[in-house]
C-alpha cells in the first residue's frame, strides 16, 4: 500500500509538525507500507493551466504523480481566511476529475481558533467527495494551544492521530476487499 502524507501549506510549522507526527506513526505501525511525505513548502509548483497532470515538468509532475499513484492520502491543512490554503487548492486543480476514485483520503487540520472546526466539513470534504474520494469520516482538528515549539503537547491529539492513521489504513483494506469482490462478478 502506498500512502502519501501531504502537508498542504508552503508556510508555517503547525501542519508540518502534525504531518511529521503522522509519518512517524505510519512508519512505526505499518513498516510494510510505502510512506511518502510531501511538504508543499519543499516544492515549487506551477498553477494549474488545464494540462494533464503528467504533462507538467519538475516538482509539479513529481508531486501530482506521487499523489495519483497512492492508495491513501492523508491531507494536512492549515486554516487560512476560514478555508484551505491556495497551495492545497492548486493541488486539487492540477489533478483530473475523479482523481481520488478508488483512493482513501483522510484529513488533519490545524487552526488558530476552534471557530474553524467545521471548515473541513464545509469546504474540504465537498471537494474530496466531488473528486470521488473514499473519505475517512472523522478528522483530527488541532489548535494553536495544542502545540509548543513545533511539538504537539496535547496527548489527546497523539491518540487521535493514531486512530486516524489506523482508520485510513483499514479503510483502504476494506475498499480493496469490496473492489475485489465486485471485480470478481465482472467477467471482463
Amino acid at each position, binding site marked *: 500500500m502506498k500512502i502519501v502524507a501531504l502537508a498542504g501549506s508552503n508556510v508555517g510549522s503547525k501542519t508540518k509538525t502534525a504531518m511529521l507526527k503522522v509519518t512517524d506513526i505510519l512508519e512505526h505501525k505499518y513498516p510494510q507500507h510505502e510512506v511518502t511525505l510531501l511538504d508543499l513548502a519543499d516544492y515549487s509548483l506551477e498553477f494549474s493551466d488545464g494540462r*494533464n497532470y503528467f504533462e507538467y515538468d519538475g516538482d509539479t509532475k513529481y508531486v501530482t504523480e506521487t499523489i495519483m499513484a497512492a492508495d491513501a492520502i492523508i491531507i494536512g491543512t492549515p486554516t487560512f481566511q476560514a478555508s484551505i490554503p491556495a497551495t492545497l487548492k492548486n493541488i486539487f486543480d492540477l489533478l483530473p476529475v*475523479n482523481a481520488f476514485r478508488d483512493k482513501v483520503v483522510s484529513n488533519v487540520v490545524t487552526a488558530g481558533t476552534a471557530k474553524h472546526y467545521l471548515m473541513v466539513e464545509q469546504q474540504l470534504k465537498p471537494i474530496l467527495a466531488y473528486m470521488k474520494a473514499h473519505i475517512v469520516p472523522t478528522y483530527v482538528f488541532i489548535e494553536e494551544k495544542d502545540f509548543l515549539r513545533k511539538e504537539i503537547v496535547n496527548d489527546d491529539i497523539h491518540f487521535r492521530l493514531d486512530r486516524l492513521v489506523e482508520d485510513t489504513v483499514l479503510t483502504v483494506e476494506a475498499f480493496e476487499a469490496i473492489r475485489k469482490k465486485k471485480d470478481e462478478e*465482472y*467477467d*471482463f
Partner: protein
Amino acid sequence: MEKYRIEPSKGMEFGLYSLGDHIPNPLTGERVSAEQRIKELIEASKLAEQAGIDVFGVGESHQTYFTTQAHTVVLGAIAQATSKIKITSSATVLSVSDPVRVYEDFSTIDLISGGRAEIVAGRGSRVGAYQLLGVDLQDYEEIFEEKLELLMKINEEESVTWQGEFRAPLQNAQILPQPKNGSLPIWRAVGGPPASAIKAGYMGIPMMLTTLGGPAINFKPSVDAYREAAERSGFDPATLPIATTSLFYVGDTTKEALQGMYPHINGGFQAIRGGGYPKQQFAQAPDTRDALMVGSTQEIIEKMLYQYELYGMQRFMAQVDFGGVPFEKIMKNIEIIGNDIIPAIKKYTAKS
C-alpha cells in the same frame, strides 16, 4: 441539409473516426510502429468503404501516444485510396492553425476525392498542440471563435476581406483552390456540456457532439440547447445536421464485447487521461440507455435507435480503434457494422 451533403431520405449516416492514437496493445504490451499504424488507418478506410460505411474521419493530437498530427496528409492518402466514402477531420484543432491553410488543405482533399471532403473544427480536448505550436492558452476561447468565423467566411465568399486579432488581415483575398462544388461542409466539434453546443447553435453551424459514455440522456440538453440557440439566431434547426460520436466495440455476445473492449478502453484512458475506466461503470455500459457503444450486434442497434429517437441526429461516428486495438479486431468490427448494423439502422431511419 443539401448544403452539408446530407440526404435524410437515405437514413442516418454511419461513420468511423480515429484520433490516430498510438497506444501499446494492453494485452501484449507491444506497440506497432507509427508507419504501420498510419498504413492500417488508410487500409481501414478502404475496408470501411467496402462495408458501406458513409464517412471516415481522422483527427489531430500533438503529443505522445498519437500518430496523425498531420491529419490532413493522412486524409489526402485516404482520398486517393477510396472512391465514394466521405472524408472528414475528427477534429481539426483550428485554434493552432491558420484557417486559410486549413481551407486550402481541405479544398485540395476535396478535389483529390472528387468532392468528398469535410472539416470538423474543434478546440482540442488536449492542450499539447497549443504549447508546441506557440498558441497562448489564455486565448483558448476567443482564438477559436475568431478562426472559425474566418473559416466559415472563406467558405461562403469568393473574395475575402477580413480583419481580426489573431491573424494578419485579408484584403480581397482569393483562397485557392476552391473545393469541387464551391463550398465544404464545415462542422463544429463540441464536447459534452451545453456551453459549446450553444455557441454552435448561435453560429448556425452543424454540430458534431461527443457522447463518449454515461447515460445518453445526459447529452440531450446539449442537443436541445443547440437547436434552441440556432432558432434564436435566425436559423432553421431542421436544416442543420447533428452528428454524435462514441467509442465503439461490437462482439458476437455481450460478454465477448465487454472482454474485447475493456483492456483497450482502460489502457487508453490510463495513457492519455492518467486514470483508467472504472469497471463498475463499464459493467453498466451495455444497457441501451448508456451512450458507450459496447455490446452485441443487437444491443448496439438498440442503443443507436434509442439515441436516434433521443437526439434525431443525421450521423453517428464510431471510434473503433481506441487504446491499441489490434487491426484484426478493427476489421471484425467493420465487418459487423457493414453486414448487420448499418442495414438495420438505415431501414429504421430512412425517410421514404
